[in-house]
């Protein structure tokens, strides 16, 4: 099988090379990686092959050397596996900053970090905030770096759980062909909500812990620095790479940044409440 092309992409100077075999797969790789940092192939720490084989039942596969990471017919599963592999490779030895499992949005006045584990509604809330005019940074991962609290986002397409499609349809118009979808979820290009996207690395201005609870009344409660730091640690991905786990610096970030917990059951009145509390950011 002949290689069609390759991309060397990454995050915070950690790169992987992705070789693809087929034009269709070039489109898939570009869909996933078009906003990631690019680098020379010589800088890549790992090399993946994305393949399409078989004429009757086209079989997709993802390989890391001799090891098969995915094999099947679902483009979404392949895309999901590949993006997670890229994230893993870019973070596993990265000590350039504090990697936080979080979504983020930005504006000229700074960045809002939305940390949370999977299932807390980060991506849906972020998509909705972007539809209201906030700039998309990421729905998955950021690196916080330096005394100026610079936020470096891992910018990828929105990755949604399958159950989010109904609510997403209420504020963005898209067609099935715009997405890569599977049983577990779907990916949506962020430019559908954010057509004037330009990469930003703003300073951290607010930490907002989102929690979707069905039927809940919207509540925005300020958290103490200590509690905020403890919650942030739950989303801290690369602590082991940093001397002393980097907790002192993480604590400094929480001492110098407003921290709130946002519980919401719907988007009704939510933006107004955020605007009232943080008019420079929303």
């Amino acid at each position, binding site marked *: 099988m002949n290689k069609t092309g390759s991309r060397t992409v990454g995050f915070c100077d950690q790169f992987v090379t992705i070789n693809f075999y087929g034009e269709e797969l070039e489109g898939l790789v570009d869909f996933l990686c078009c906003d990631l940092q690019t680098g020379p192939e010589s800088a890549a720490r790992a090399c993946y092959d994305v393949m399409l084989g078989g004429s009757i039942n086209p079989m997709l596969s993802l390989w890391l050397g001799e090891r098969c990471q995915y094999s099947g017919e679902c483009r979404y599963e392949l895309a999901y596996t590949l993006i997670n592999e890229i994230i893993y490779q870019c973070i596993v030895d990265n000590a350039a900053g504090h990697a936080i499992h979080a979504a983020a949005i930005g504006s000229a006045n700074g960045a809002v970090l939305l940390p949370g584990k999977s299932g807390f509604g980060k991506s849906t809330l972020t998509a909705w905030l972007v539809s209201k005019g906030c700039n998309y940074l990421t729905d998955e991962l950021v690196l916080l770096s330096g005394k100026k609290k610079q936020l470096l986002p891992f910018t990828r397409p929105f990755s949604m759980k399958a159950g989010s499609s109904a609510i997403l349809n209420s504020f963005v118009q898209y067609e099935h062909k715009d997405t890569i979808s599977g049983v577990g979820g779907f990916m949506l290009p962020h430019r559908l909500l954010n057509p004037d996207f330009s990469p930003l690395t703003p300073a951290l201005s607010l930490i907002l812990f989102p929690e979707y609870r069905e039927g809940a009344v919207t509540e925005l409660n300020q958290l*103490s*620095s*200590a*509690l905020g*730091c*403890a919650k942030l*640690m*739950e989303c*801290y991905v690369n*602590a*082991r790479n940093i001397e*002393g*786990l980097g*907790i*002192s610096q993480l*604590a400094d970030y929480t*001492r110098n940044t407003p921290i709130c917990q946002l519980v919401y059951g719907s988007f009704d009145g939510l933006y107004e409440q955020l605007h009232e509390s943080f008019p420079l950011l929303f």
Partner: protein
Amino acid sequence: MALVSILYRLQREMTFHFISGIKSQAKICCLSFFFYLLLTMEYLHKFLLNPDFKVEKFDNEILLYAVSNTSGVYLNETAYLVWEMCSQGQSVEEIVLLLEETYSHQKETIREDVTVAITSLVDYGALIPSSDE
């Protein structure tokens, strides 16, 4: 002893990362540990700080974190006081009496608060029962 064992296991199985804010779990833990302490008279026991844990101080709160597992435990003001007194070698009973004397207006809740705090800190591994009687 079977009851003690069950109750102790029950409280140990609670996964606790924040001492405040998880009231229902705290109450179950508190209840089991209360019976445990009552049945074994471990109010005389002392607890040592686990040296693997580091402390990050904020104003009236602290964050404990273990280098080995990279997760943190948030201590509110009461838990912070308990932690400090354990570090000074005081027994559970001594801690309760001292706090009841200092905060006499909250006397009825202090024993429970101390029990909850110690249970959680032991559960998290931040406190280790001392072998000294």
